[in-house]
């Protein structure tokens, strides 16, 4: 889902940079208030894990492939989409500057799609669906939705840039991302359940539950 350089006009890239910088400003404010010492290793390991998992493409139909993104996963673990903004800014910056994966001019757009949209959609859909549907179903749906809506965002950005004028191509992209969302959903459920079993103290919702009880 990384948009390379040359796909979006510079003035539009500027708009996405402004949105991303604003989101980063609010995320840093969140960190100053909420990110405690215990979460420091979690943030570092999650950033490394997201970098690693994004390199592992799995084959999809029509000669395509896709990888996990993890924005919903990060936001749900920290109970804060702001954490996804911070982690994805770091990961996407290294991917763009070191590996050429995603453009430098489009870095703002890529952070918006993979860090901001996935984090916001993933966390708030999980929060809304958890009570009526239960943990596993809501985790899966929230992660799937985070990828699908991030893909819709990419389509809109490329449409504004005059690239996705062919409806068939846009639909094909959305179908491929809908498949990618299934992989995202399955892996998010597995990772959260594994964390809950081994280090439940790292899941912020458990900490909140504990604080509410005492």
């Amino acid at each position: 889902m990384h948009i390379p350089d040359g796909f979006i006009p510079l003035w539009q890239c500027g708009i996405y940079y402004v949105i991303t910088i604003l989101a980063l400003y609010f995320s840093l404010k969140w960190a100053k208030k909420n990110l405690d010492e215990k979460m420091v290793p979690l943030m570092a390991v999650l950033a490394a894990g997201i970098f690693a998992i994004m390199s592992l493409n799995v084959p999809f139909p029509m000669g395509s492939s896709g990888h996990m993104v993890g924005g919903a996963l990060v936001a749900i673990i920290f109970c804060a989409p702001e954490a996804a903004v911070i982690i994805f800014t770091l990961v996407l910056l290294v991917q763009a500057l070191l590996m050429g994966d995603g453009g430098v001019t489009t870095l703002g757009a890529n952070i918006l799609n993979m860090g901001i949209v996935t984090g916001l959609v993933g966390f708030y859909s999980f929060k809304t669906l958890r009570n009526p549907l239960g943990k596993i179903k809501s985790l899966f749906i929230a992660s799937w939705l985070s990828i699908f809506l991030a893909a819709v965002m990419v389509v809109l950005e490329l449409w504004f840039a005059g690239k996705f004028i062919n409806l068939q191509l846009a639909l094909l992209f959305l179908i491929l991302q809908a498949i990618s969302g299934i992989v995202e959903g399955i892996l998010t459920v597995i990772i959260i359940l594994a964390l809950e079993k081994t280090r439940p103290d790292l899941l912020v919702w458990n900490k909140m539950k504990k604080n509410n009880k005492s």
Partner: protein
Amino acid sequence: MKPKDKYFIIVGIIICLIIVVMTPFIASKNPDGLQKTTEQLNTNEESVIYKAPFVDYKIPLFGNGPYSVIAALIVGLLIVLGLGYLAAQIIKRKKPPESS
């Protein structure tokens, strides 16, 4: 740092290393969804203002083989891990939580 946090970091790094070592052998070489659907689009190549040192996750010094990919991924992984730790240390809460 508590021992269980140290253990968490070590286990996390080992899992990440296993993923990056396996990547060149098991990852699909097919283009991703965006590459696949934008293959026929005209892009403005002249607007590419920056060339990354490890393009396509390969260190040029190590050639085009899988070990070049593994080396590039390990370098990237360590940089992200270090940056993540450093950034979190800098931006974390300095004062104890406010009690209401």
